């Protein structure tokens, strides 16, 4: 009820703003939006291809980085250091900067045998940035498994790797699925950043249409498309979190 009042009130203020008719024409032209939907969807297919490949790679790379960072012992110090430097650097620098540096920088080296297309390097940049974030999520999961679990596994004669593989990681990964999906929502939205180095995807498509027609409604179309693909995922995350809480409340840790 109160939501209706708040949003109704805000809507009333907007619609009665002095320049509303102009804004309505240049931002909420429903006919233009409807007509652009097929092209926007075509652009979106590039985003989807980008973030699905990136997500698959992130899952694997982040896990490897997290495991390397949690292996004790002086022998592994150089590897731990490398993994730490990687996560620090890729989280410190804004994603758009990585996309520029890799997307324009690497192809201009003119090296033989490495891909030159912008899509590839945009994919690499997004994957590396998000793998750095997700590796921290995994690491929190690994740390949340009580050391007594590892002790129990090792006492049975399992090696350090076997204990990690069969006892620690399965429990850790299960616990971090919600925050991990949360990062994937961020990744899916950030896939539009690759338009800045010339990859034609949904945002770039809207941009082209906007400059051709001097109308911003296409961006509202982009917003609607992302709402449609992201909100269900956000609901899924909430549902998983709630389920996890119920299981814990019931005394289980499964």
């Amino acid at each position, binding site marked *: 009820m109160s939501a209706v009042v708040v949003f109704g009130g805000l809507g009333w203020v907007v619609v009665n703003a002095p320049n509303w008719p102009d804004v309505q024409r240049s931002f909420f032209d429903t006919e233009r939006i409807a007509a652009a939907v097929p092209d926007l969807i075509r652009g979106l297919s590039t985003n989807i291809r980008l973030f699905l490949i990136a997500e698959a790679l992130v899952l694997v790379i982040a896990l490897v980085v997290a495991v390397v960072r949690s292996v004790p012992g002086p022998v592994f110090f150089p590897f731990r250091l490398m993994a730490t430097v990687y996560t620090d650097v890729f989280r410190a620098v804004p994603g758009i900067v990585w996309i520029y540096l890799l997307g324009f920088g690497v192809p201009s080296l003119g090296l033989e045998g490495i891909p030159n297309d912008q899509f590839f390097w945009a994919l690499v940049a997004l994957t590396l940035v998000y793998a750095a974030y997700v590796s921290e999520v995994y690491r929190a999961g690994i740390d949340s498994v009580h050391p007594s679990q590892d002790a129990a596994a090792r006492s*049975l004669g399992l090696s350090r790797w076997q204990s990690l593989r069969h006892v620690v990681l399965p429990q850790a990964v299960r616990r971090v699925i919600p925050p991990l999906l949360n990062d994937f929502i961020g990744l899916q939205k950030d896939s539009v950043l690759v338009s800045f180095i010339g990859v034609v995807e949904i945002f770039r498509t809207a941009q082209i249409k906007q400059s051709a027609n001097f109308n911003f409604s296409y961006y509202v179309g982009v917003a609607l498309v992302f709402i449609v693909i992201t909100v269900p995922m956000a609901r899924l995350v909430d549902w998983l979190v709630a389920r996890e809480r119920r299981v814990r409340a019931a005394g289980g840790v499964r």
Partner: protein
Amino acid sequence: MSAALEIVGLEKAFGRLEVLRGIDLTVAEHEVVCLIGASGSGKSTLLRCINLIEPIDAGRIVIEGDEITAPAVDVDRIRRRIGIVFQSFNLFPHMSVLDNVTLAPRKVLRTTRALAEAEATHLLERFGLADKRVEFPDRLSGGQQQRVAIIRALAMRPDLLLLDEVTSALDPELVAEVLDVIRELAAGGMTMVIATHEMGFAREIADRVCFLDAGVVCEEGPPDRLFTDPSQPRTRQFLDRIIKAGRL
């Protein structure tokens, strides 16, 4: 013939806290030794050191003639021969009872799944848990969980079983079922070192009782003598406190 377990001059400190200050202990094959002593006397730490979960600072541990504390020993191979059961069960919550029991035989001994499961089922039947094979640990009572933990250790056919206050985390009415399992193992000739607060049980099951105090074996002897006529004043003090608490 070499002893099942021989410990010489074992020392262990956590930072500046010296927990074990020169433990000497020998356990013969098929012998059941109970460790008693106040909380913090080093019983649990001693068991964890024998299993090499805790690295030791000084001393030697010899299992059937093999010095396991020698440098460059493969600790994974050693641990297969020494089972340990913890106070807090430490079952793997994401696995069924059957998988908990068969994980180590399958992954460490490379037993086939079929064979490992047949052996596990046999053990579960022997201790009255066959109907729980597909359950997950959170569906079991504490007593059942601890029995599964013992079976999980037995599945590796250890030469030596270490029990670390295995009934301390249980509700009183669940203690008996776990003690019954240990009785049966003792009757079957399993070599065991048992840290316990159950003095009545120690007296009944132990071939020998060791009283740990301030990080050393203060006194050891057959249970009847140690519980009724201890020679050390500190042992007497400890037992008096236990009696006053109504635990003996």
